C-alpha cells in the first residue's frame, strides 16, 4: 500500500465547483467500486477451485459491472458532453478513479477473494438500502434494482466466511490471514469525504455515520459465527475515494483498458 508520501486527505480529483459536478462525482464514487470489484472477480473466470464457484464469482462480477453501467450512463447524462459510459470506464487514469482501496486489492487466493467480497457486500447492502431513500430519483431506482442482486451476493459471501472459518484447520488459517490482511481497508467505506458530506446535506447521499456501527456489528457477528478472531478496529487505510490508490489499481486498469486505449472507439 503506497500513499506516495501525501497526507491521507490529499485529493487528486478535480474539486466540484457546482452541484451537478458533485452529483457526477458521487455517482462515479459508487460506480467505481462496482466496476473495479467486478473486474477483479472476472479474473477468476476459468480459474476458480470448483465449477460452481467459478460460475458464482462471475455471476456476481456480471451483476456488479451491470450496476456500474447504470451508474456510468447516469453520470454521462449528467455531464452532457457526449461522453459515453465506455469513455468514463476505459479512458480515465487511476488517479481519477474513486473506488475504495478494498475492492482493488488482488485476488490472492480464494480466501482473500471471499473475505474481500464479504467485507464489501455487508457495506454495499447497507449502503444501497439507504440509497433507495435518496432524493435523487435515478440513484434511488438504481439502488432498488441493485439491492435485489446484492441479497444473493451477501448470502454467498457470508456463508463462505462461515464455511471456511468453521471448516478445516487449513481453511480456518487461510481465511483468518485474509481477514487480518484486508481488515486495514474496511474502515474507508464508511468514512465520509467532501463529496459524501455535500451529497448528505442535499438529501441525495447516504449517511455513512449511520451505517458505520451497523456495518461493524454485522461483520463481527459473522466473524464470530465463523469462529474467527476479530482484529482491532483502527487505524484504517484510506485514500481511494479521493483518488489516492494502491499500486494494484494501475495494473488492473492496464488490463481492463488496453483495448480501448490501443484502438480508440473500437466496437464489435
Amino acid at each position, binding site marked *: 500500500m503506497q500513499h506516495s508520501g501525501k497526507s491521507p486527505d490529499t485529493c487528486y480529483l478535480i474539486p466540484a465547483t457546482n452541484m451537478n459536478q458533485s452529483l457526477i462525482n458521487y455517482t462515479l464514487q459508487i460506480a467505481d467500486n462496482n466496476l473495479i470489484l467486478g473486474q477483479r472477480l472476472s479474473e477468476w473466470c476459468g480459474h476458480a477451485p470448483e465449477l*460452481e464457484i467459478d*460460475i*458464482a464469482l462471475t*455471476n*456476481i462480477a*456480471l*451483476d*456488479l*459491472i*451491470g*450496476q456500474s*453501467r*447504470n451508474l456510468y450512463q447516469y453520470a454521462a447524462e449528467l455531464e452532457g458532453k457526449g461522453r459515453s459510459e465506455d469513455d468514463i470506464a476505459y479512458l480515465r487514469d487511476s488517479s481519477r478513479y474513486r473506488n475504495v482501496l478494498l475492492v482493488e486489492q488482488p485476488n490472492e487466493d480464494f480466501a482473500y477473494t471471499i473475505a474481500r467480497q464479504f467485507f464489501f457486500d455487508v457495506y454495499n*447492502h447497507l449502503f444501497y438500502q439507504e440509497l433507495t431513500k435518496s432524493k435523487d430519483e435515478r440513484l*434511488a*431506482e*438504481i439502488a*432498488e*434494482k*441493485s439491492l*435485489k*442482486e446484492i*441479497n*444473493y451476493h*451477501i*448470502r*454467498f459471501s*457470508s*456463508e463462505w466466511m*462461515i464455511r471456511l472459518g468453521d471448516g478445516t484447520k487449513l481453511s480456518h488459517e487461510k481465511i483468518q490471514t485474509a481477514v487480518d490482511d484486508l481488515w486495514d481497508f474496511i474502515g474507508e467505506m464508511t468514512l465520509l469525504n467532501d463529496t459524501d458530506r455535500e451529497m448528505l446535506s442535499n438529501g441525495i447521499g447516504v449517511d455513512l455515520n449511520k451505517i458505520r456501527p451497523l456495518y461493524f456489528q454485522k461483520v463481527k457477528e459473522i466473524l464470530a459465527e465463523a469462529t474467527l478472531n476479530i482484529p482491532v478496529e483502527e487505524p484504517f487505510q484510506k485514500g481511494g475515494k479521493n483518488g489516492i490508490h494502491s499500486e494494484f489499481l494501475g495494473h488492473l486498469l492496464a488490463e481492463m483498458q488496453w483495448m480501448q486505449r490501443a484502438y480508440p472507439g473500437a466496437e464489435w
Partner: protein
Amino acid sequence: MDAAGLSWGRMVVTTDKIWQLLESVSDPEIPVLTVLDMGIVREVKSFGDGVEVVITPTYSGCPAMKSIEFSIIAELEANGIHPVKVTTVLSPSWTTDWMSEEGRKKLKVYGIAPPIPGTNAKRIEALFSEAPQPECPHCGAKNTKLVSQFGSTACKALYQCQDCKEPFDYFKCH
C-alpha cells in the same frame, strides 16, 4: 394520428397489434420464452411518428438487453412500423411475478424449473436456510437439491434431482 392507434402514412396500427407482434420476439438466452412471457416489456406508446417500446432488464448485468432491443426493432420494422424506439427503465424493478402463466409452462417443458412465487431471497440473515424445492423438470420428482444459487445465467440457480440425478436450472424467484 388516429384516435384508435398510431398511423404511418396510409397504415394504421393499433398498440394491440404491436403487442401481438412482440409475441414473436424471443429471449436470446431462453429462446422458448418471448419477451412478453418474461414480462420485460412494460409499455408500448406512440412517439412522434413512430412507436416507443419500454423494456426493463431482468438483472442489472443482463447481457441480452441490447440483443432484445435489436430484435424488437427488427420485428416491428419488418412489419412496416417505423421509426421504432426502445427505451430501458429500471423502476419498478423487474420481478418474476410478471412472468406469464404460459411462460412458466413453456419453461418447464424446456427443462427449466419455473420460479416458485414467494421464495425470493429477501431475508439475508437466513444463511444456510432451506432453499425452495422446485420439481425436477425431467422426471417430476420433488426430491431436489440446490447446488448453487448462481447458474448458467443471472436469473437461474443450479439444482440436482436426487431421484433421477439429472442437474437442472431453476429460474430464481426475484
